[in-house]
């Protein structure tokens, strides 16, 4: 696709039926309302994760087989599972690992990928070629399959699963960072810095990196939801956590045969859904704020 030419004159909105001009408040609400909602959801879940031990009505691992598979009630808001554990308490505790895993994978993946991408853009030539072919190589595997194979080989557990995800996570950041850095590299202020005799490392860290942070921040925010989904998926397949540790994906797995006792699997999945929606709202809002042109998308 060719980008629309900026020289096009006249109002581009002929295709759009005339809408009564919305008030300023409504316009701002339409634009940033979802971002505020998303931010609220994310902050709420972070608080839940931090405060889980104090706000849960029961211990997450407290087994009581005399009350197994009870439907939601006043005593157990989200019912109980096959071992009589309180689903609500386990769900609150599950937020800890899900959020921690998501943040770890995305932040480390972004750090590794950005470093590789910026270094590749700066060195050009052989180093660039080698690093980018390595990126292509990882990208030519379907991520979930590769992560599944590595996680299974490393063994069950949160750390191994995070490690496996990191292996497949960095390339997209490397690609984006390289593209952004290549644009910055040809800017005049970089030339000026080079002429002034600054060392490459300083130019990279102090001049190029800050200018690429905006789009990277958008990708990081949008990607957090993605990472939480993938981690939950690997846990669902039995890799992420060692039972009885409460984790959303494995909680859905425990209830997946229980079609009659839907509450065991339904609520943890709903928790994943809300957290991912929250991060997606935040990411979209951040992108609109940083790049006004993207609003039309």
């Amino acid at each position, binding site marked *: *696709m060719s980008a*629309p*030419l900026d020289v*096009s004159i*006249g109002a*581009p909105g*002929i*295709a*759009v*039926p005339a*809408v009564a001009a919305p008030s300023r408040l409504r316009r701002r609400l*339409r634009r940033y309302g979802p971002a505020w909602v998303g931010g609220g959801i994310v902050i709420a879940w972070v608080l839940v994760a931090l405060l889980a031990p104090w706000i849960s009505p029961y211990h997450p691992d407290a087994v009581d087989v005399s009350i197994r598979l009870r439907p939601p009630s006043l005593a157990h808001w989200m019912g109980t599972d096959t071992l009589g554990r309180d689903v609500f308490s386990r769900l609150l505790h599950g937020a800890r690992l899900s959020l921690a895993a998501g943040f770890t994978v995305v932040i480390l993946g972004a750090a590794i990928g950005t470093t590789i991408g910026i270094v590749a853009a700066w060195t050009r030539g052989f180093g660039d070629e080698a690093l980018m072919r390595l990126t*292509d*190589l990882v990208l*030519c*595997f*379907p991520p*979930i*399959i*590769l992560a*599944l*194979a*590595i*996680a*299974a*080989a*490393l*063994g069950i557990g949160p750390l191994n699963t995070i490690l496996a995800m990191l292996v497949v996570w960095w390339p997209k950041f490397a690609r984006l960072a390289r593209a952004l850095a290549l644009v910055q590299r040809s800017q005049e202020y970089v030339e000026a810095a080079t002429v002034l005799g600054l060392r490459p490392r300083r130019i990279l860290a102090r001049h190029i990196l800050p200018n690429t942070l905006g789009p990277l921040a958008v990708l990081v925010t949008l990607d957090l*939801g993605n990472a939480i*989904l993938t981690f*939950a*998926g690997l846990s*669902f*397949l*039995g890799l992420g956590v060692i039972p009885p540790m409460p984790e959303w*994906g494995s909680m*859905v*797995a425990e*209830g*997946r045969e229980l*079609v*009659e006792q*839907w509450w065991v*699997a*339904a609520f*943890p*999945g*709903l928790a*994943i*859904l809300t957290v*991912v*929606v929250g991060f*997606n709202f935040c990411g979209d809002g951040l992108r609109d704020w940083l790049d006004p042109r993207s609003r*039309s*998308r």
Partner: protein
Amino acid sequence: MARYIGKRLLLAALMAVLASCVIFLIANLVPGDPVLAQLGDVAASDPAIVARWRAKWGLDLPLWERYGIFLTGLLHGDLGISIATHRPVLDDIRQYAPATIELATIAFLLSLVIGIPLGIAAAVRRDGWIDSAARALSLLGVSAPTFWLAFMMLAIFYGGLGWAPGPGRIDPIAFPPEGPTGLFLIDSIWSGDWEGFQDSLAHLVLPSIVLAAATIGLITRTTRAAMLDSLQQDYVRVSRAKGLHEWAIILRHALPNALVPVVTLGGLAYANLLAGAVMTETVFAWPGLGRYTFTSAAALDFPAIVGITLVVSITFLLVNLAVDLSYALLDPRVRR
């Protein structure tokens, strides 16, 4: 054009060889040991049994020798023997592939049939209620965990309402339709088995909706963005000035140009559907490649893991190649 294709093919072949090397190293260098997973505690505590078992599967040879054997086999179209099923990996893949291809294809068609019209409508009536609904739908589609969506669909439409059949490709007491392809829809038509066709189709409904959920959102958003872009181009303004009917402008002039990015994305999405079927197949007890991947990963069945990752990544490469080539056909500027 021929040079472009040749260059791309060469690059793809090189990537496939490198990929085989990487996946072999990953599968063989990691600390996980298939001995325990396969033999069980009692047998694994007897060193003689373990040594014999390792020799049988060639696990006592040095790494480079094992890679040599693997490569030689690969060139003969042999992916080795699965440790868990004791069958050639290629036979296993051949057996499970049709179920996944059928599911992914139906899901892909579903996401095109829903996503493209929805994207067009959202772009034409921008900021209208269709646009908002499309936005909400695509957000939910990409945010909902596939495995949870699969469970909810089963719980509601099979357990609760009884509208849909249970897990599996066909009714448990029915015989699979006979035919050459292994795709039940085509096989049942081929053998004139009308009941089998209905049964297979009914079993496809829920899993294909679940598998398509994320792709529908992706296709809708891409179509919408591309349509908004092309509706602002000069040729659209010219068509309007000529007095063409609005729908003729949208469908004949704006849409074909907007479809270029959709084709690119669609190809990648199809490859991702093939790979992403792991969760859907697990919940719906779908006997496809996704479930095979998962069971072999859980059993540390290295030959199977290497084989399937290789097959899937080569498929990935080929789809990418096809997408790039179709891109070059649709947009002459890319060929240079």
